[in-house]
Structures are given as structure tokens and as C-alpha cells.
């Protein structure tokens, strides 16, 4: 008994999308235009933890994002890299919920505009920030206002 998955009611598909991890969402969006649209317009569900971070790794440093056990990293903490992350996020989900979310910037900086774009549609229980400079702390304080219902540790 063959059945086209895309004939499932929208409610089922959206429920299903909440159970699908980030890497699997990437595969799904390559199957057809309808799935590409569904992936980008659906909620990614709930993850216990999430992160965005940079760290020292030789000359260029590394930038990464995490969704529970799934971590994606790139070499180089540059504006171009931030754009790539925003691009990926835009095409993979519209919203997502995290129990805990941490921002740890040890190399370079995370512009407020990036932080706001990246976390658009996020729901976060507990925020954890690691700021190494006064400028980073100021960014963080502005960023916090975006999530008045979350708890924080800095």
C-alpha cells in the first residue's frame, strides 16, 4: 500500500516535523519543493539544550551551533560565517524551543543583529551567557530584553 507522505494532513506533517532532528531536516528539504517549504516553515520542536559559541582553535578560531547532540562547526569567526549560519537557520525551521541555551563567545564577537536574527522564533527556558569583554556584556544585556520570560546566568 503506497502512499505519498505529502498527502498526509498538514497537522500530521507539522507534528512529524517536531520530531525530526536538524540533520534529518536537511535531508528532507532536498527531497522536493514541498518538503523544502515545510521544513523552513515548521517548528523544529523542543531540544533540551542548544548553543552558539566560538572558541580558539589556532589562527582563525571556530564558530559553532548546537542542538542537543547535533553540533555544526566552521573554521573562522567572520561576518561571512555568521551569514552562513543565518542562511542555514532560515531554511531549516521557523521556530524552536530549548530547555537551556548558551551563548559562549571566546573568540571574536557576536553582533547583536546576528544574535537577534539567529534567535528569532526561539523559545528558551534558561539562558546562559559567557561574556569576556565589556562590549560583549553590553550586547548580552540588550539581547536579554528579547527574552523577558527566560531565566539567565551570566
Amino acid at each position, binding site marked *: *500500500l*503506497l*502512499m*505519498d*507522505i*505529502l498527502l*498526509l*494532513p498538514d*497537522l*500530521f506533517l507539522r*507534528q*512529524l516535523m*517536531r*520530531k*525530526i*532532528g*536538524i*540533520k*534529518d531536516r*536537511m*535531508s*528532507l*528539504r*532536498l*527531497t*522536493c*519543493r514541498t*518538503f*523544502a517549504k515545510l521544513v523552513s516553515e515548521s*517548528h*523544529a*520542536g*523542543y*531540544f*533540551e539544550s542548544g548553543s552558539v559559541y566560538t572558541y580558539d582553535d589556532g589562527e582563525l578560531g571556530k564558530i559553532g551551533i548546537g542542538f542537543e547532540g547535533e553540533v*555544526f562547526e*566552521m573554521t573562522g569567526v567572520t561576518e561571512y560565517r555568521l551569514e*552562513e549560519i543565518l*542562511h*542555514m537557520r532560515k*531554511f531549516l525551521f521557523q521556530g524552536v*524551543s530549548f*530547555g537551556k541555551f548558551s551563548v559562549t563567545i571566546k573568540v571574536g564577537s557576536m553582533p547583536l543583529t546576528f544574535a537577534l536574527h539567529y534567535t528569532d522564533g526561539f*523559545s528558551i527556558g534558561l539562558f546562559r551567557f559567557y561574556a569576556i569583554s565589556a562590549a560583549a556584556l553590553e550586547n548580552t544585556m540588550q539581547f536579554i530584553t528579547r527574552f523577558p520570560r527566560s531565566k539567565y546566568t551570566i
Partner: protein
Amino acid sequence: PNVKLVTSDNEEFVVDFRIAKMSVTVSRLMEAMNMSETDDASLLSNSIPLPNVTKAVMARVIEWCEKHKNDEPKEEKENDKRGRTTHVVSDWDKEFLKNDEFGRLCQLMGAANYLEIKGLFNDISQTIANMIHGKKSDEIAEMFNIHCDLTEAEKKEIRKKTAWCED
């Protein structure tokens, strides 16, 4: 006490009251028809019509309910309400669903949704998510009978933009 359920193809299933109550839809209908556990006459004289469920699917639903009738009611956590649940499909449920082709899973999912049996609905959607897990796009397309309408150039472009995540 038993409750009579009648499917779209006019098949009558006589099930235990506890099993009938596992469906929110059936519970509501019984309430509307003044059917109560303590009133045998009300149960004997009425049957619940289920026009959206066929005999074959109903038999599967009842089999699932029989297995789960003594389960402790699950408390809905805040995280569950927000979405992606850490739903673990039990070994029995995996076995129960493993031989269902995708089309049959969809029919069962439709019945679980109509009957409002949340546990079964979650089991099936998690099973489908597990079927997708770790597969490449062409494997998913083949498994679910999806016709890919993306051009090779478009696929290449998408892959290029997300190549950094693939390592």
C-alpha cells in the same frame, strides 16, 4: 461492562469500557449519549458510530489499546506542549508497528487522530520520524514515494550553501 463500536464498513466491535474510554472521541460520544459504566442498559442499547474508521484499522487500534489499557496516564510535561517530545517507542510498540507499510501507518495515524488516542498518534509519528532518521534525501524520497521536483542545479546550490553542516 462492554461498549459497542461500529466502523464505517458496518463492523461491530465489542470492547471493554476501559478501552472505549481511551479514545477521547468515543468518551465524548458516550457522554453525549448518556452511556455510563454503571448503567448496563445504556451500554447495551447503544452503539458508537465511527464513520472515519474501517474494520481493518479498528482492529489494529483495539489491539494497541488492549496492550496499553493498564498504562499509567502520562502527565503532559511543559516540554511536551512545546513540541518535540523525547518520545520513546516501547519495544512492544516497535514490534506492533514494524510490519506496517507506510500507507497503513498513515491510516492508523488518521484513526488515532480522529479517535484522539494521543499515545498511539505519538507512537506512529515517532516511528515515521525514526524511519527518516539518518537517511539521505534520495532514500527518503524512495521510501515515501516522493517525486523530486528540484533540478540538479537547485540541489547542488542547496548542498553548496549547507555544505559546512554536512561534515
